[in-house]
């Protein structure tokens, strides 16, 4: 298993490099100019100098290699230095600068990650926590009232877009009932009980919207997987041994049913990082999804490149993690 993991990691390197090249080249072709947002009074010569200072005069491959070096060496080291406080780790080299704000993209992204992880991550986590028991019970009591209602709700949760549920929730819970704020205040710092409760309250609506959506998907998946396994012969064997029904379902069946579900959950994690663009926009959550959308509008090419690259790496990474988990959970899988 360790060998397999290492082999997969090594094989992931060329994949990631090819992805990075594609991302860089495609976005490089996109129209966009770092000086576009500057006042019109700035003369063209000055604009040209700005472009040169940003390294835009060089051939594309040179720029790519430099960007890649900054992306995979300088920025991670900066991030590491900031997290650990070991200032001597901090490299001297150049950093990827946002065309919009002229500050390093790494720093901006680092500021945005907490919001996204809190809101979108919680939405995912709660979605999973709701989905698993619903899926298990729905399957065990197939066609019961519980199952019918669960099926209906997940169909709704799955087919109604989040911008609709989001707006409905805002209308009901903040406009009519006034229980929760409709806008997420990114500047809120949790310092005491009061601010903690404010944070919780402002998270309720966006987290609910996302949790509903995720739960709808995952509970269907859990249900299908449980149903697959409940009809297996080994379940009858477990019953014939005189095990408690609880043990039969929650040990024998669940352990098998979790294999594909855990894999799907792992594959969904990168989507948490890429943020929920729509939900973040509706609730004004200043997260990575919002950051990406803004960067696209502003033709902030370095920011878009960096974010896209990070998402791509996460997807590759979690694919690998999903495979490894599969191998761990299913003893029949041999990876060597």
């Amino acid at each position, binding site marked *: 298993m360790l060998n397999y993991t290492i082999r997969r990691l090594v094989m992931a390197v060329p994949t990631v490099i090819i992805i990075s090249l594609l991302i860089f080249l495609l976005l490089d072709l996109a129209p966009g100019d770092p000086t576009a947002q500057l006042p019109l009074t700035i003369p063209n010569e000055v604009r040209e100098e700005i472009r040169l200072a940003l390294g835009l005069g060089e051939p594309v491959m040179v720029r790519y290699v430099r960007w890649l070096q900054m992306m995979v060496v300088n920025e991670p080291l900066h991030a590491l230095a900031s997290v650990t406080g070991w200032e001597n780790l901090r490299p001297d080299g150049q950093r990827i600068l946002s065309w919009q704000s002229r500050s390093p993209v790494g720093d901006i992204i680092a500021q945005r990650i907490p919001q996204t992880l809190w809101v979108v991550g919680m939405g995912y986590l709660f979605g999973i926590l709701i989905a698993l028991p619903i899926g298990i019970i729905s399957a065990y009591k197939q066609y019961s009232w519980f199952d019918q209602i669960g099926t209906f709700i997940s169909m709704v949760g799955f087919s109604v877009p989040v911008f609709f549920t989001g707006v409905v929730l805002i209308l009901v819970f903040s406009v009519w009932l006034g229980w929760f704020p409709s806008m997420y205040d990114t500047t809120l710092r949790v310092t005491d009980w009061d601010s903690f409760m404010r944070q919780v309250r402002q998270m309720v609506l966006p987290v609910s919207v996302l949790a509903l959506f995720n739960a709808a998907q995952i509970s269907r998946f859990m249900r299908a997987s449980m149903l697959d396994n409940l009809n*297996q*012969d*080994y379940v*009858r*064997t*477990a*019953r*014939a*041994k*005189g*095990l*408690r*029904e609880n043990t039969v379902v929650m040990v*024998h069946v669940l*352990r*098998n049913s979790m*294999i594909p579900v855990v894999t799907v959950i792992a594959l969904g994690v990168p989507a948490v990082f890429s943020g929920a663009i729509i939900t973040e926009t509706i609730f004004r959550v200043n997260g990575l999804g919002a950051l990406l959308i803004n960067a696209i509008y502003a033709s902030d090419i370095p920011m878009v490149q960096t974010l896209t690259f990070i998402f791509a790496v996460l997807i590759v990474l979690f694919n690998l993690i999903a495979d490894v988990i599969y191998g761990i*959970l*299913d*003893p*029949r899988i041999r990876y060597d």
Partner: protein
Amino acid sequence: MNDGVAPVLDVRDLKVVFRTRGGEVHAVNSVSFDLRPGELLGVVGESGSGKSVTMMSLIGLLPSPPAEIRSGQVMFGGRDILKVNARELRRLRGREIGFIFQDPMTSLNPVFTVGFQIMEPLRRHMGLKPEAARTRAAELLDLVGIPDARRRLKDFPHQFSGGMRQRVMIAMALACDPKVLIADEPTTALDVTIQAQILELVKDLRQKLGMAIVWITHDLGVIAGIADRVMVMYGGQVVEQAPVRALFADPRHPYTRALLETVPSVRGERAPKLKVIEGQPPLLGAHPSACPFRFRCDKAHGLCEQENPRRRPVGAPGHDVACHWDAPAVREAAHG
């Protein structure tokens, strides 16, 4: 016959129906039989004749719905086990009545070690501590002829061959030293040599442990080799029952006769053409008030349409048959 001995298992008038979309299926219709201590009862009958359903209904292994036990009585250990509560039923399963299923490939849980699965009933029913349970599990594997037992406890089912897995199933069913072992076509999925080995093993274990066995099979050759008594089922009913010699020497039911003719002769000369029983297996839809075999029976007459024959004693002691036709042997006896 040793009629004085009280049976370990005494089934009276068992009726099982499946409620399906297409109406009720009378899978088991007034089945009665008994099983004496240490005896091996062979059960034969074509596919769909209700062999598995009969045996599974004894210890509540049928999914309900759709299965429903309409009537009957199953006396075991001095009480009717169709009426005991769920807790008591679980104690019977595995502890008092062991079950082996047809397909050893799917009857073991793929994600738990063989040791874990054998130890489960030991810990549940005998209250053994993990170490004691492991020792006993290793003894059991040894008993069923798996070499290097202690080490193999750590292996998963897929690491065993089909025959070995069936040995594991047998070890599991015998773990708590049950009084009755029900084997539902335990060798059908295995190739001939392995089948012979398993038969030898069961004969051997029966000598050592002395439990009573119900052995379901399609294979009359197997029955001839190991059974003390045979029960022939057709269309959800017991149509004939006899000590094994009597059945082979003097079959009375037209179905049994046909069944015996389909067996290729063991002694050299092969039958020119293997005889098949003509016609379709019966539909078990309507409540049968006529002989289920009448459409395929060459002895059918008027009465067969009007009345479902009851079992009546014929020939040797312990031999009974459910048929309106007096087979020749009986007529001679009556006239002589």
